[in-house]
């Protein structure tokens, strides 16, 4: 089971250790381990339905494993109360695949929500922080819009703005470029890179878009049949001789991956 410890000496911000997770009869992750290096962008690749989004939810404590451990900043979040996990979640942000903005609130109110609920900032300070976040994703003009009034790409970026407004140490992006045209995909990729620079934080990205992955990833992990079968720097994964990784990157229907 390759983990980053074998390929890098980077300091870890999060770690999954021998995690097994089932939904009823269906085993999604089996003895799965993964290290998240601080300050790096780690991309997780794998087939649709392989359990990549499940990994993000485990890292955020939204799902708990049947077996194994999930550590954030060295603390096992599986054995915490929900209140303790809520404290840990203030260091982590999850940007959802379909943005998951609250549709009864405007974009500005959505982005302001974590600040209103978790800080004692004044309304003026909150507005400044929200405008700063929206500016980071090029969306200041959408402050008063409802989510239903935004395009797909704008929704994703509004979701990013909400995710970063609390200056989290770890941002989890669930398929940020899925379903977007190439220009918006590039824009989103650039935005993730810029946000990493701005926050000086760590990011985990789930994506199927290979050019986008290799443009931003420091590390790439491949999830296959419930386990991380390859984990290395982006360059090494790109040139991997692992037949499963190679078939996936080539997009070939011939090889060890059953279609």
């Amino acid at each position: 089971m390759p983990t980053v410890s074998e390929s890098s000496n980077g300091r870890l911000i999060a770690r999954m250790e021998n995690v097994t997770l089932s939904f009823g009869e269906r085993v999604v992750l089996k003895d799965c381990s993964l290290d998240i290096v601080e300050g790096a962008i780690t991309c997780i690749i794998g087939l649709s339905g392989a359990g990549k989004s499940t990994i993000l939810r485990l890292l955020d404590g939204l799902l708990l494993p049947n077996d194994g451990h999930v550590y954030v900043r060295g603390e096992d979040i599986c054995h915490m109360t929900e209140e303790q996990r809520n404290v840990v979640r203030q260091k982590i942000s999850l940007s959802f695949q379909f943005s998951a903005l609250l549709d009864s609130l405007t974009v500005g109110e959505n982005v302001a929500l974590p600040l209103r609920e978790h800080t004692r900032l004044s309304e003026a300070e909150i507005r400044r922080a929200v405008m700063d976040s929206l500016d980071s994703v090029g969306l200041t003009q959408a402050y008063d819009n409802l989510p239903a009034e935004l395009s797909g790409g704008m929704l994703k970026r509004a979701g990013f703005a909400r995710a970063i407004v609390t200056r989290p140490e770890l941002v989890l992006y669930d398929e940020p470029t899925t379903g977007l045209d190439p220009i918006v995909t590039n824009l989103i990729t650039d935005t993730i890179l810029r946000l990493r620079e701005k926050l000086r934080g760590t990011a985990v990205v789930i994506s199927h878009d290979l050019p986008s992955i290799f443009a931003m990833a420091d590390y790439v992990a491949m999830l296959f049949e419930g386990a991380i079968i390859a984990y290395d720097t982006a360059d090494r994964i790109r040139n991997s001789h692992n037949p499963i990784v190679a078939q996936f990157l080539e997009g070939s229907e011939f090889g060890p991956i059953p279609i």
Partner: protein
Amino acid sequence: MRLLDRFGRATTDFFEYAGGVTLLSGESLGFMARLRIRAGETVSQCAILGVQSIVIVILTALFTGMVISLESAQQAVAYGFSGFVGGAVAYGTVRELGPMLTAVVVAGRVASAIAAELGSMVVTEQIEALRSMGLQPARFLVVPRLTALLLMLPLLTIFADVVSIVGGMWVAQAYAHIPYATFLSSVRQTIDFPDVVKGLLKSFVFATIIVMVGAYQGLSTRGGAAGVGQAVTGAVVLAIILIFASNFVLSFLLFG
């Protein structure tokens, strides 16, 4: 064997459901006890759940009071005790029909709306987004609705009681020529303040049932749009059944 299996599964489902509603209720009431209530959202829910239910409550109460009066006035005139019609209408309305019919009508509107809204939020990952931001859906979504309906349902019930009695009074006068003064005097002789209070006590229980069933159905939605539909139907059916059942228990305890 299959029958036993089915019985076992139904029993497990029942206790799982009852446990889920109880936990959600406990969590929500806990937040309310610690006054962790979002005031702005509660006011907005008072308008959505309460004020917007006024018309349907008025119409239901009006026609119910009118029909009770119509039926009792016919008999009263025939047997010569028309002075008791007001009391009959008020007695049935204040102790039973006012709180229960108001709750049933509001359940049809509100339990379905809550289940649909929260169910849609589940399938669009908004609930998960709240949890990922460290916000508890019970405090953020359920408590404002529960607080709002606990305030509004008793008010709607008072409204329904008054409208029902006024409607009954009008029919008694128009149909059986019972003077307003006779009708009102009968009302005053039959109903006292504790009856009104006990009727209102019921509405607090009904409000809790409506919100908790609607919220739990919504929050346990699975499977996209079809799941939302099932959650809505289940919320209305279950809330109405529980209102009828708890009304019997409450009447037994309060008036028995």
